[in-house]
Structure formats: C-alpha cells, structure tokens
C-alpha cells in the first residue's frame, strides 16, 4: 500500500523568513511614497516650473531687447539717410542760391554800368549842346570880326553887315536844327 506523502517542497530562501517582512516592507514603502507625493515631488516640480518661467522670461526679455536694438538701428539708419538727403539738398540750394546771387550781382552790375553809361552819354550830349551854343555865339562874333578884319572898313556899313550876319546865323540855325532832328 502506497502511503500518500504530503507535497512538501522546500522553498528555502524563497519563503520569507518572517511573514512580517511583507508588512514592514509595504508600510515603509507607503510612508516613503506619502512623503514623495506630498512634499518632495511638488517641491521639485514647483522649482522646475519657476525655472522654466524664469528662463522663458529671460529669453523673452532678450528677444525684446534685440527687437528694440533693431528698431533703434533702423531708426538711426533712416535718420542718417534723412540727414544725408537734407545735407545734399542744402548743398544744392546753396549752390543754386550762389549761382542766383552771382547772376543777380552781374545783372545789377550790368544795369549800373548801363546806367552810368547812359548818364555819361546824356551828360556828354548836354555838354555838347552847351558847347555848340557857346560855340555858335562866339563863332558869329569871331567870324564877323574876322570877316570885318579881312574885308576891312567896307563892312562898317551897319545896314549891310547886320543883314549878312542875320542871314548867316539863320543858315547856321537851320543847319543845327536839321542836325538835331
């Protein structure tokens, strides 16, 4: 008769030495978990969030600063270009104005010269007329005297002499009048 042997496998170290090890291990792990869950992980995650925000803020700030610098540069460049065109314009204006001034001056000088010329001419003409008048008056006397000297006493006949002088003078007058006209 075969006796039934109860199945008894020696599990050796695979069985816990004390069953309480299971409970102790689990309780300790739960304690650790609670501390990690309530304290440690939130603290670290909060720090990470703050760091991310700080880094993002810093990057945004830097980006903004760069943008501002770019704007300032563009502004400066446009101002420079403006100043350049302004300077060019001023230079051009000055040149034009200079030319204009020179032309005006020249014109003025010309006018002055012309005026002076005209004055001189008029003066000359007046003097000439005056000289002619004086000349005529003196010339009549002189010519008569001279002719009297040449002709002698025959011209003492006042009547004839007077008529001859009159005729001569009338001739002379008409002559100068045609000349004037």
């Amino acid at each position, binding site marked *: 008769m075969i006796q039934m042997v109860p199945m008894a496998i020696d599990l050796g*170290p695979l069985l816990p030495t004390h069953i309480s*090890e299971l409970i102790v291990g*689990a309780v*300790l792990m739960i304690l*650790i978990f609670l501390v*990690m869950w309530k304290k*440690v*992980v939130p603290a670290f995650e909060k*720090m990470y969030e703050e760091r991310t925000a700080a880094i993002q803020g810093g990057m945004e700030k830097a980006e903004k600063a760069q943008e501002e610098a770019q704007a300032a540069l563009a502004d400066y460049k446009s101002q420079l270009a403006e100043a350049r065109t302004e300077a060019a314009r001023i230079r051009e204006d000055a040149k034009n104005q200079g030319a204009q001034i020179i032309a005006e001056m020249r014109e003025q000088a010309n006018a002055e010269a012309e005026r002076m010329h005209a004055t001189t001419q008029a003066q000359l003409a007046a003097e000439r007329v005056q000289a002619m008048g004086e000349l005529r008056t003196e010339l009549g006397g002189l010519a008569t005297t001279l002719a009297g000297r040449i002709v002698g006493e025959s011209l003492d006949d006042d009547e004839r002499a007077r008529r001859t002088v009159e005729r001569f003078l009338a001739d002379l007058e008409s002559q100068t009048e045609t000349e004037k006209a």
Partner: protein
Amino acid sequence: MGPMTLPALVGALVPLEGGHYESPGVKDFRYFCADNPEVTSGHALAGCTFGVDWMNKPFWQAVIGAALVIVLWLIASRNLKKVPGKGQFFAEYVYSFIRNGVARDILGPEYRRYLPYLLGLFSFLLVNNWFGETFLFMLPTFSNIGYAWALAIMSWLIYIGAGIHRHGFGHYMKMQLVPAGVPVYLLPVIIPLEFLSNFITRPLTLGLRLFANMFAGHLVVLVFVAGGAFLLTYESNLFYNVSGAVSLLFSFAILFLELFIGALQAYIFTVLTAQYVHSSLAEAH
C-alpha cells in the same frame, strides 16, 4: 602518475578535512532571537531586538533605509533654488534621472501621477541594496525575500490599479487577456497564458529578480571572505595562505561589482514597474 579520482583532487586543493570550515549558506541571511530553535539547530543566525524575532537586522536596515530616504529627500527638497548649488545639483541629477529618464520616457505626459512612487521606489531600493557594501550593515536588505515580495506586491497593485482606474475593470481585463487579432478558437489557450504572464509572472519575476541578485551577490562575497579568511589562517600551508589573501582581495572587487549590481537592480525594478504601468494605461495592447 596514476589516475586521480575527483574527490582526491578536490581534497588536495580544498581543505575539507582537518579544519572546521563552514561554508556560507542560507542560514547567513536568517536572523532569529538566540533562543529560537532555528538558531539552536543551526539554521539561522542569532540577532534580534526587544526579544521579537522579526525585529532583526534586516528589519532595522529597512527602517533605517526608509528613514534615510525620507530625511535625505526632505533635506534635498528644502530651499530649492532656480539656480542650483552643488548639493541641489546632485539632488536634481538623481531626481531628473528618475523623472526624465524613467517616468517621462516610459509613461509620457502622465508621468507626474506615478513619479512619487517611482522615485521613492528607486531610492528605497538603492539605499537598501547599497547597505550590502556599507560598514555596520554589510547585508543587502532585499536578500531577505519578504522585503522584495512587499515591493513586488506594491508595484503589482499599482499597475493593476492604474489599468482599472483608466479603463474600468471589465475593459482592462479584456485588454490584458484578449490580444487583438487572435482567432476565437485560440482564446482558451491565450487567455490563461496572458493571465499568467500579465498578473502572475510579472510580480513573481520582479520580486525574484531583485531577491536573487542581492542574495547571490552577497553569498559570493561571503564565500570569498569566509573561505579567504579560513585559508589565510590555515596552519603551515603557504599555498593556502596565499590563495586566501588573493581571495580576500578578490572579495573587494566583488563588493564593487555588487555596488554596480545594486544600482542596476534598483533601476531595473523601477523601469519595469513604469513599463507595467504603461502597458496598463496603453489603449491598444
């Protein structure tokens, strides 16, 4: 030279007889009060506080580890500045390693909800695994499988809870058990397989992987230290003494390897938990 039998060869190289070498084993991971039959029968080490069997070395290590994790993180999360100092820089490095490298990478935008658990899990695992290489402790807490099971069950509850919360119980079960595009006649095979893989093997492998790595790593260190010390002090055999010295030196190399494995296992446990949560939340399977 005559043929040598294997036991004779082993006997020539390893001092089995004559000495009183006791090879390290499972008993080096079990702690009971000194008057407990487990100790008196040689199946466990003596060590407990307040006369309570389970208030032993691994228990206090777990408590101190948890306290360390809580206190260190509370200090680290105090007074956080936008521009970090040296201490904060290090804390942030660890924090973002889990936050960005694990939680956000795997879970996407909903990582925030699961981050506290993942961060706590990783820290708790790392500290306790490194206790295996820390003076005064010199024992990885998770080489006691009970603690590994505790965390595996927590992760199991969390990824199932996440799925039920997101999709409702019925829909979640359907998504997990019935893959899209499977012919109806295969369902009787597929459903138990999917159930096993999604609800049974996941927590089992999570716990076992962690425990086995810590247990085996610590056992290797114990073997090199205990064996090395025994050989080094063996009388009138220079070869044994030199081997013992080499073995002790080698145990330091193993300790450094254990540091790496401890960190790796903490990372793997955390990543897999995140992965399971993700597969529970995902719309299509």
